[in-house]
């Protein structure tokens, strides 16, 4: 049924996803999240999407994980296991997660999706085809996406700006 690479990737991805939420140190949690993203990139390679896998590694492992780790160092949270995280809340969370898992899993297991098979002799899409799609039919979406990214980054910079420090530095200039 499933091959050994898939099983190994599943253990890495799911294990480090749990570790990213449950590790005591927030910094280790960020690193575990990056490993989980790498596991997802491995799935993309199995699924014949190497370009998306490269994009995933560049954006998630290269940018998002580093941004998260820098934020962890910047805020220096003293205690990661807080007292607000009560036992009652934890039991509720585990029950809710399990309920969703059982519900979606049983729906998936009894649906017609299980009859679907991967087409073995399907053509593998190369970068050329994706690029053609991005630049012809989806080009307005690409432009809007670029504006969204730019405004999000400018907004984040404007949010994190410190006005008091700038006022203090002005007379020296």
């Amino acid at each position, binding site marked *: 049924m499933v*091959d050994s690479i898939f099983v190994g990737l599943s253990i890495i*991805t*799911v294990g480090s*996803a749990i570790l*990213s*939420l449950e590790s005591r140190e927030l910094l280790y*949690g*960020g690193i575990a*999240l990056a490993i*989980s*993203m790498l596991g*997802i990139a491995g*799935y*993309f390679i*199995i*699924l*014949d*999407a190497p370009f*998306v896998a490269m994009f*995933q590694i560049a*954006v*998630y492992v290269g*940018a*998002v994980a580093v*941004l*998260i780790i820098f934020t*962890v160092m*910047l*805020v220096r*949270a003293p205690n990661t296991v*807080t007292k*607000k*995280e009560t036992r009652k*809340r934890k039991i*509720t*969370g585990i029950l*809710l997660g*399990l309920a969703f*898992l059982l519900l*979606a*899993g049983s729906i*998936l*297991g009894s649906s017609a999706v*299980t009859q*679907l*098979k991967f*087409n073995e002799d*399907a053509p593998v*899409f190369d970068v050329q*085809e*994706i690029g053609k*799609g*991005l630049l012809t039919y989806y080009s307005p*979406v690409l432009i809007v996406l670029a504006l969204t*990214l730019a405004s*999000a980054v400018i*907004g*984040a910079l404007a*949010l*994190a700006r410190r006005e008091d420090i700038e006022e203090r530095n002005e007379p020296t200039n």
Partner: protein
Amino acid sequence: MNQPTDFLYIAVILVSIGIYGLVVKRNALRLIFSIELIANAVNLALIAFSRMLPSPEGQIFVLFSIAISAAEVAVGLGIIIVAYRFYKDIDITEYQNLKN
């Protein structure tokens, strides 16, 4: 050889881990971790269906989705830094004044 269902099961497991984190954790950074896990699970399901159909559209959608979640993380971390400056804590139960 793997079937599409295997990848969908992994996506469902990742989404339920993300739901658990969103409900239990009160640390603002852990909430961002959970949101990222859910976003990645959706990307995995999209790529699996794109391989099955087979159609390159799914891969294009995933590229857009990854870019949008990168923007979302940038804004979220900016908000966390500002909130830490006000409250000296990243526990979201401390952020009572944001309600008013």
